[in-house]
């Protein structure tokens, strides 16, 4: 059979339509499309894709099952290593991970592993009518409990493995809803909340307990958790502290961190104000600062909130943008106006304290910096102003410091990250950490991988350490 060199495209909502709604953008593969795409995998013996995956999903095996239309066995293979394919199929940066190493990619497009992953996850979701009923083999309860801090991807994946091993797992979440960044950060049009809820309900069914409205560090310290009878603690509290540029006028009304803007919209449903009580400003001319996935999410969200112009201001060029290619393409298609090699230097406000302009400098690229990207250098005298009525700062987040400052003896790195070894061990015995709180802002799948690794370490610790 002749190899199809191009990926089977996935149908999407047209840009003109989707930029006015919060519905998901890509619509998913049909069975025929999925089988055709699965047939592009040549089942090469080396399968480098697997080593490109942070949790080592058996990619050729699940794709083979799709090709043979054995979808239950495809999902079973997936669940061996990844219990959130509906999430990762949508938001993993596959082009930098599994697909980057695909052998087919050497002669044409790599196999669209992410889309196939999503296909089987959606198949399962529909089959179960939104309520997952998967029986996993649990060993006898060990009678020991583990506390997990934060309900984002790291804790979710860690908790599943712990429950499978016979531990009781309790997730403490400060917000009133679970999912962490999957819920407050990533917009509905990229990751429908029904998918996140589905996974959380599934975990609850497996026996994972969720305690909401509980901020570890304030409501109770890690030491208190041990006193309450937990035998080990996993910290998966993520990188939630927003960074600002510390430039003049940044506290003017109408300037948001991306976290605030997205939390208001996604978690608090401010896009349905006044049906929902949380307000948000609906900017007409919005500047979004940054070039990552969060910046794309914020820009595309503000478009859906009714903005007429959304300027994405990024200090380097398109090549250096850390965002997933798909997100950049979607943003461009929807009419986000990219202002590359541009950096804000100050905001100007009106007499009431609302932002009305941003002053920027043009940049040029210089030598490569420590990250391997070319360093942006300001062009002197190139100042210019843009009229705006809203700005969203999406220049990255740092690990949230609440736990580190309330846990004596916990070793912390220079950026506020918790220091943990490759197995997730921290400087305190019985305390483990993984995900963005350790690595700084990374990806959902990396956090899930770290959660799984930590679960294995916790198991070893509780068996040997006791």
């Amino acid at each position, binding site marked *: 059979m002749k190899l199809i060199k191009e990926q089977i495209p996935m149908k999407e909502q047209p840009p003109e339509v989707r930029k006015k709604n919060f519905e998901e953008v890509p619509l998913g593969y049909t069975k025929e499309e999925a089988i055709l795409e699965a047939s592009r995998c040549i089942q090469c013996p080396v399968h480098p894709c697997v080593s490109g995956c942070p949790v080592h999903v058996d990619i050729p095996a699940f794709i083979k099952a799709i090709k043979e239309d054995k979808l239950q066995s495809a999902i079973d293979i997936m669940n061996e290593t990844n219990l959130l394919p509906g999430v990762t199929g949508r938001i993993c940066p596959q082009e930098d991970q599994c697909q980057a190493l695909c052998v087919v990619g050497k002669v044409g497009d790599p196999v669209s592993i992410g889309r196939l992953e999503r296909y089987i996850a959606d198949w399962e979701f529909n089959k179960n009518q939104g309520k997952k009923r998967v029986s996993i083999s649990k060993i006898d309860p060990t009678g020991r409990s583990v506390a997990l801090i934060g309900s984002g991807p790291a804790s979710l994946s860690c908790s599943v493995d712990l429950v499978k091993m016979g531990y009781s797992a309790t997730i403490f979440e400060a917000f009133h809803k679970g999912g962490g960044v999957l819920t407050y950060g990533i917009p509905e049009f990229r990751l429908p909340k029904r998918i996140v809820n589905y996974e959380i309900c599934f975990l609850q069914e497996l026996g994972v307990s969720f305690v909401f*409205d509980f*901020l570890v560090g304030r409501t109770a310290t890690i030491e208190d958790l041990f006193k309450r009878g937990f035998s080990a603690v996993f910290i998966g509290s993520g990188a939630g502290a927003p960074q*600002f540029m510390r430039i003049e006028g940044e506290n003017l009304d109408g300037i948001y*961190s991306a976290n605030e803007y997205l939390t208001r919209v996604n978690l*608090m449903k401010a896009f349905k*104000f006044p049906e929902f*009580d949380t307000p948000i*400003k609906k900017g007409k001319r919005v500047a979004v600062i940054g070039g990552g996935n969060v910046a794309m999410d914020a820009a595309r969200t503000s478009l859906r909130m009714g903005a007429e112009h959304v300027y994405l201001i990024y200090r380097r060029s398109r090549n250096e943008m850390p965002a997933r290619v798909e997100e950049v393409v979607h943003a461009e298609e929807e009419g986000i106006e990219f202002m590359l090699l541009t950096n804000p230097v100050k905001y100007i406000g009106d007499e009431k*304290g609302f932002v009305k302009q941003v002053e920027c400098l043009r940049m040029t690229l210089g030598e490569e910096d420590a990250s391997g990207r070319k360093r942006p250098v300001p062009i002197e005298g190139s100042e210019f102003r843009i009229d705006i009525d809203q700005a969203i700062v999406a220049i990255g987040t740092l690990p949230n410091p609440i736990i580190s400052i309330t846990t004596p003896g916990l070793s912390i790195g220079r950026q506020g990250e918790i220091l943990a070894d490759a197995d997730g061990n921290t400087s305190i015995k019985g305390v483990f950490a993984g995900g963005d709180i350790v690595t700084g802002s990374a990806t959902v799948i990396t956090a899930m991988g770290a959660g799984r690794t930590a679960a294995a370490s916790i198991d070893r610790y509780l068996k040997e350490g006791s």
Partner: protein
Amino acid sequence: MFKIVRKNILGPEIVQMEIEAKNIAPVAKPGQFVILIVHEKGERIPLTIADRDNDLITIVFQVVGKTTTLLAKLAEGDFLCNVVGPLGNPTDIETFGRVICVGGGIGIAPVYPIARALKKKGNEVISIIGYRSKDYVFWEEKIRSASHRVIVTTNDGSYGFKGFVTDALKEMLNEHIDRVFTIGPTIMMREVSKLTKERNIKTVASLNSLMVCGMGMCGTCRVRVGGETKFTCFDGPDFDGHLVDFDELIKRLDTYKEEERISLETLRKEIQI
């Protein structure tokens, strides 16, 4: 779920509630606050913890917008969807010497646990508490029990001294004062801080910024202190009153004035129907 165990009306649109919060009450300290949600589509609002007793926390609030209107409608035995806390750093309570606690309006409630703790620590506590008029006076006895001297002011002179708390404070500052604590309307805290700055008396202001998360992840509550941006929920809520940019804070508090009006009007229409 968080049960409303007791509810008292303290004055015009001023409501006190004692809420069951088993995880919060035993660990709450003076100066800390909670964030609560009144119903499923509700917003998150911060309220300072005014007292605690076993499993109960006390909050005192004034009905000003939609959320407080809905909250005030709840009765004893009703439940709140969500209460998270205690949030923020506790007030720094040490033996300072002679201290003044300046509370205004609804801010008088959170003054109480701070004054009590200061008194217990051996300070001479002078409390200056200001109300709009006699009808609005609440917790006077509690404040008296937590202070050595109390000066009550009302704007219209219908009870206690006529004038603002700052008028009373000005006189008091003729004595030797080691520290001032202030909680209340932002303008009041600004004026208190101005007065004490002239005499170089360290002043702690408990700020009431807008908030969403309460855990340092959103930055809604950012405030300029000594030229640096701080988060009220994480770095505060207490800050050096001489360093706070109150004018910026006042502007930020007004960000959603229009939305707050729409929200309240929509609610009033719904209630009428």
